[in-house]
């Protein structure tokens, strides 16, 4: 028997009973997973990034398996914010699930528009701002790769949404200086950071002898990138120890989740692992609880950033 561990966590002013969340884009809007576990048993459902308009996304093939990972190139297919708020959010709240809505845009203005729509929605716990999208106003450069664009997106969302809803800025690891980007968005009003989005990759099909994905490049996720996620979280937590981090990247077991928490994550999103195991979140949550208990932690929160304890 293991001792009970208080698994609860917070991100800004939002409270969650456990630190295990879905990852945006890896749980659609929740309905599909409800057959495998009650959605209210996990920390939160982070919904697929939604844009202001409905969107077809990228051409197929949209995925390629890689060693211990996969590439995806979905291109933010989705119903648009209005349909999403009308259909998906109410259903999730009915399930008593905690909901973090992920938003994505092509312009600073689009993010603000999305934030305005969210402002009036009650019951959601936080907004995750996926800034790993191409900025159509800046030669398609990904917002999260440019400190100034990142900052402007978050500033716009902060101003529009008011002071209530926690804003979590989701960053890309494909940058030279991640702590600098993190500092910028926190200064602009982010309450927390989501680390990491996928790593840009490509697979070439050796039969067609062309890039395999319809969108040519894709985002690398899964266990392959876990060391990059741990490093990113560790670096950013060291630079900004007070800013809560929602960690993600290759988590497939309770051990992996613990690694991210020790590095500095207050919560852990599970993405690609759900593709291989629809009950991954529950399995990870149970294993994490046991690991924390075995290490004598009475609360999950004591473990957050514990790997930094001897730092100068």
């Amino acid at each position, binding site marked *: 028997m293991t001792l009970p561990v208080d698994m609860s966590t917070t991100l800004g002013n939002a409270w969650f009973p456990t630190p295990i969340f879905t990852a945006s884009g890896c749980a659609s809007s929740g*309905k*599909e997973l409800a*057959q495998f576990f009650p959605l209210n048993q996990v920390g939160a459902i982070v919904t697929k990034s939604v844009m202001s308009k409905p969107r*077809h996304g990228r*051409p*197929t*093939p949209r995925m390629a398996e890689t060693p211990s990972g996969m590439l*995806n190139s979905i291109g933010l297919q989705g119903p648009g914010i209005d349909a999403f708020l009308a259909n998906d959010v109410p259903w999730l709240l009915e399930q008593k699930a905690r909901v973090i809505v992920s938003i994505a845009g092509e312009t600073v203005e689009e993010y603000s528009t999305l934030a305005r729509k969210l402002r009036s929605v009650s019951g959601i716990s936080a907004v995750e701002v996926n800034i790993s999208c191409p900025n159509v106003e800046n030669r398609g450069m990904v917002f999260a790769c440019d400190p100034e664009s990142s900052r402007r997106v978050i500033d716009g969302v902060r101003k529009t949404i008011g002071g209530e809803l926690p804003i979590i800025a989701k960053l890309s690891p494909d940058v030279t200086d991640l702590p600098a980007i993190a500092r910028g968005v926190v200064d602009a009003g982010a309450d927390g950071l989501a680390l990491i989005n996928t790593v840009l990759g490509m697979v070439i099909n050796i039969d067609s002898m062309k890039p395999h994905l319809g969108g040519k490049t894709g985002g690398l996720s899964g266990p392959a990138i876990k060391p990059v996620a741990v490093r990113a979280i560790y670096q950013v937590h060291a630079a900004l120890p007070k800013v809560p981090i929602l960690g993600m990247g290759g988590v497939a077991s309770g051990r992996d989740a613990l690694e991210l928490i020790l590095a500095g994550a207050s919560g852990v999103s599970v993405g690609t692992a759900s593709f291989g195991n629809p009950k991954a979140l529950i399995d990870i949550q149970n294993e994490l609880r046991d690991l924390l208990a075995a290490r004598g932690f009475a609360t999950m929160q004591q473990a957050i950033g514990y790997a930094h304890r001897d730092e100068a």
Partner: protein
Amino acid sequence: MATINKSAVQEMVTILSNKRVGAYHQILLNVGDIVKNCRPGNFVAISVGGDTSKMILRRAFAISRVSESSQYGGTMELIVAPHGSGSKWLCSQAEGTEIDVVAPLGTAFGIPTEPISALLIGGGYGSAPLFGLADVLKSRGCKVDMLLGASVGSKIYAPMEGKRSVNSLKIYTEDGSMGETGRVTENLLDIVRDRNIDVIYSCGPMAMLSAITALVADLEVIHQCAVEESMACGIGICMTCVLPVRNEDGSTSMLRSCIDGPVMDGSTVRWDLVGEVPEGTA
């Protein structure tokens, strides 16, 4: 609560037998009560490579047939082509091995309430689910004709017992090594007309499904096809497996072939747009 993947479960199941049949492996699984919810057209998603595998995604296989009456409780048969490392791993697993399956998944072939004339068309291992379907159609009094095609004879899957459930079976191979030389689409229009086919059920390569759709476009016949797109999750959460499908209002949606398929109405699939993105907004 669940409205999607309604009867799907994840379970460890045992391999009862694994036999080579031509170019394929016929794998029989002891799946217990899962069979109760399996319908022809549904598929299973299987973890491959064991605990230390670098392959993180499940592989999808059509359920060839299920049986409740066997000595083992419910059994499920799969017909697996050793294609890449995942399917080869599965084909190399011995009797008694436990494998991790999620099943049943996806849509099923629509079963008519009246005794219609059905034409079942299978390409390669695509014939696998058609024999189970034939059984059901037969039990409803339908007339069941079948066309199977493949590049070579070893890729025709047509088990003895399966042949019993069909009124006629015609085989085509591209190299002529079995049956007639050519493709299943060769005399399709004649067959449909001559035999007064009401519904075509098809399963096989996308090019075959698309060709069938085009051929019968002007006929009254219904065409239910089981599509095959690369799937990362098989349960509707990843959006990788989408196909452009025409909506009633003429617009096109990118539908997930794992939950809105694999069985789809062939006439609604925009085969011309597969691998592209429709114009305009969704």
